[in-house]
């Protein structure tokens, strides 16, 4: 037993002064084993999603609270959840599944604003953030905040309303949970927000005590003309506005619209955690054996033809960091 341990993990004449678990055939075996692991987990995930799958807990209330917390930290006003923007987000999400795309512009050329207008929201400024395959609401908001363009949307002072949809379906042959976030401000909100000008009209007394030349130079009272930050696109949506309950049928979609706004799934084993744990334990194992190899080879002054253990340790450490920082989701 002790001999087997030494043979497997310690540089020794029996293993040509290189731990057997670091030999080329062992490395090749790891490649094959992890490929099989990948295929097996994919099969179990597809066949038994309640046993092994991606645990997901994304709720609109959390997305809203987290978004507003970020805005308030920056001294901005919170945004309000708007039903029409949420409908627009749900339409966008269902359109992405129906036409199988992951982009701000649909293959038919539809822009986010088309969905917003179709939902009956008249906007002055609007924006869209997309996310897919995140495990929880915090992960979504943190990923958006880490990207400058998405953060700009979240932190834009002129936005007043927000809408979310969390939609599950199959995208590019892969089960996907999409999060669509729509921002907007109506023309009325923008007008209400603008500061009123303070124009003091000279009183009769002022005029009496003022030199004549200055009286003529006094400005006439003006009314502030609110200039929107972006061009206002006047759209009559009264005829086009539809409800989300109607939209899926128009697209020929079959899904439960009541489940559009939260997505919670808790399989027995969370595949994300399983994958992360297995890979990190394996890398830790390789690092441990390589450290031991380096120490013994250095101590015994063994000369051999092999890769540099220092380099392998550096590389495996980097891999450990990458896996630790990896997230399963994507944003757009």
């Amino acid at each position, binding site marked *: 037993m002790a001999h087997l341990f030494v043979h497997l993990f310690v540089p020794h004449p029996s293993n040509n002064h290189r731990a057997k678990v670091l030999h*080329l055939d062992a*490395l*090749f075996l*790891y*490649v094959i084993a*992890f*490929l099989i*692991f*990948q295929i097996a*987990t994919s099969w179990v995930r597809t066949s038994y999603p309640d046993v092994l799958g991606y645990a997901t807990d994304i709720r609109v209330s959390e997305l809203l609270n987290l978004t507003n917390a970020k805005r308030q930290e920056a001294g901005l006003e919170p945004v309000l959840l708007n039903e029409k923007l949420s409908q627009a987000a749900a339409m966008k999400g269902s359109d992405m599944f129906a036409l199988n795309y992951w982009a701000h512009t649909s293959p038919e050329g539809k822009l986010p604003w088309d969905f917003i207008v179709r939902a009956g929201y008249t906007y002055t400024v609007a924006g869209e953030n997309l*996310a897919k*395959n995140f495990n929880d609401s915090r992960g979504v908001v943190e*990923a*958006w905040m*880490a*990207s400058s363009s998405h953060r700009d949307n979240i932190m834009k002072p002129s936005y007043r309303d927000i809408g979310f949809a969390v939609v599950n379906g199959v995208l590019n042959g892969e089960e996907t949970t999409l999060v669509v976030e729509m921002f907007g401000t109506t023309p009325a909100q923008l007008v209400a927000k603008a500061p009123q000008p303070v124009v003091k009209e000279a009183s009769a007394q002022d005029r009496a005590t003022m030199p004549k030349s200055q009286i003529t130079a006094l400005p006439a009272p003006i009314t502030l003309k609110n200039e929107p930050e972006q061009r206002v696109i006047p759209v009559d949506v009264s005829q086009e506005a539809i409800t989300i309950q109607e939209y899926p049928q128009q697209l020929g979609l079959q899904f439960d619209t009541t489940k559009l706004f939260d997505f919670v799934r808790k399989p027995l084993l969370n595949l994300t955690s399983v*994958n*992360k744990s*297995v*890979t990190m334990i*394996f*890398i830790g194992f390789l690092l441990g054996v390589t450290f031991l190899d380096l120490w013994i080879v250095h101590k015994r002054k063994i000369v051999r*033809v*092999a*890769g*540099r253990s*220092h*380099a*392998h340790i*550096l*590389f*495996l450490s*980097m*891999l450990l*960091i*990458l*896996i630790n*920082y*990896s*997230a*399963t*989701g*994507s*944003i757009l």
Partner: protein
Amino acid sequence: MIVMKTHIFHYLILASILFGGVFTFIFLAGNRNAQIAIGVITSLSYVAWGIIHHAIDKDFHLKVMIEYTLIGLVAIILLFIVIR
């Protein structure tokens, strides 16, 4: 002494490659495809570094090249499993 200096230089280059990989990977958080691409590029750079390093040290052997390649391949597969 010259060998030691050369080794330090080589390892500094390796550290720069790996640090660059980690930095870019974290910077690209939320973009899975780009992160996988960075993982693959860093792993390939590591294999290339190993080959060049051993060639300069005049102890290059096919076995060594296969070792670096297999370690790089293991890294790519593990990253793919976690990030996909």
